[in-house]
């Protein structure tokens, strides 16, 4: 259990949030032209990093807004919180 600093509401308990998985996975612009391998890559394959992971969270029991988090998955320490649409920070 850890605290998450919602960019809209401030610091709250993690249980108020829901994790949305790996961030910055871009939906294919031309889905009809994708091969099966590319679909598998987009839909299922994940980095599943041990270390700094860029991921999405939603403040589901608060403002209900999505945002991005850079978190060290080896110890759950959050490095940076940044808004949707922003580029991932260099850490």
């Amino acid at each position: 259990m850890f605290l998450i600093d919602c960019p809209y509401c401030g610091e709250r308990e993690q249980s108020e949030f829901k994790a949305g998985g790996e961030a910055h996975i871009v939906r294919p612009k031309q889905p009809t032209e994708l091969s099966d391998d590319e679909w598998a890559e987009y839909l299922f394959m994940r980095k599943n990093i041990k270390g700094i992971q860029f991921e999405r969270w939603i403040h589901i029991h608060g403002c209900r807004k999505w945002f991005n988090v850079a978190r060290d998955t080896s110890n759950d320490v959050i490095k940076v919180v940044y808004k949707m649409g922003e580029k991932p920070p260099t850490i």
Partner: protein
Amino acid sequence: MNIYKVIIQNSMKKKYSIFSLIKNAFSYHENWEKAWKDPEPKKEYDAVIVGGGGHGLATAYYLAKKHNMKNIAVVEKGWIGGGNTGRNTTIIRSNYLWDASAGLYDHALKIWEGLSQELNYNVMFSQRGVMNLAHNLQDVRDLKRRTHANRLNGIDAIYLNTEEVKKFCPIINTSPNIRYPVLGGTLQKRAGTARHDAVAWGYARGADEMGVDIIQNCEVKGIKRNGDSVAGIETTKGFIKTKKVGVVAAGHSSVIANMAGLRLPLESKPLQALVSEPVKPIIDTVVMSNAVHAYVSQSDKGELVIGAGTDDYVSYSQKGSHDIVEGTLNAILELYPIFSRMRMLRQWGGIVDICPDASPIISKTTISGLYFNCGWGTGGFKATPGSGDLFAHTIANDEPHKINAAFNLNRFVSGELVDEHGAAAVAH
């Protein structure tokens, strides 16, 4: 001393029996021979298994026993059985919905039934039955469907109504007035529990006896490739040359895959469990409730063994969130009011690697000589013997066995998923 060690290592292990127990009692149990050696790695092996949990040790055991591959090693970054093998809630069952899963898990259950005798090691396999409860109309339909599917696959399953549930496990609160009343349940009588550490130790002892090197405190740092095939592994104890690497690293599978430049369809998440203070026998079966997410059994020491759910975020920290435990205990107390004043002794987390279809991967990869056995998610312990047997077959023959053919990596490309989310006894 060294000569003594060599003699011991080259001789057959003494069989465990009532007589050896009595004999060793006279020396205060201080002279039992070591169950496995502690060797330094050789320069080269015919195959190396990465991960010394139950699945990895079983793989090595069956590689040596059934496929005559004896120049092999198991490398483990910590101590054997110290990961998820020693962290699960020890439940064994095979009542899965789909044919492929039923085949896979029942293959394991059949090996469990003779495992203690085969290994000459008491894994304390106890077929005390596993009951899955239905708490709403959809549960009732799903569980009835699963009962029929199980029977068609030759797996024992019966459907129980509320009175029969109460009769089988009298401490369950079957009042219609609770938030999620018990509407029925299924029972697999051949299912049950086993002592999880003993499974790792038993396989380790058996594999060691056949010449397998079990190398602990040896972390894999890299996988060396020679073009499209495996050339060896870099470890904290140096480079080990080998043409076949079988990875059974559970929560860390993606980390190892990354070393070889592969991506897997896995997410690693914390899964928690807890045990209570020990009490006299009160529940002589395993009861699982999907809808309210609560499952409980009692260990031979008398502790209630309670499984919680996974957290929804990726983490390798082996710590879960408190609210997950709280939610599980709420459900436990509603179903078993008798436990309301029990105190919990210990709580812990393990990192489970979850596939999108909640089924495992026992598969070759695009790299020749590199095999993965992963994605067991929240329910791998029950499959330990079968998983080892089938993974050994896959590594030795460079082809999957027909039982694990459906559990290949390519299913995420072809779309032939084995979707067991609906059939998992608890929704993780």
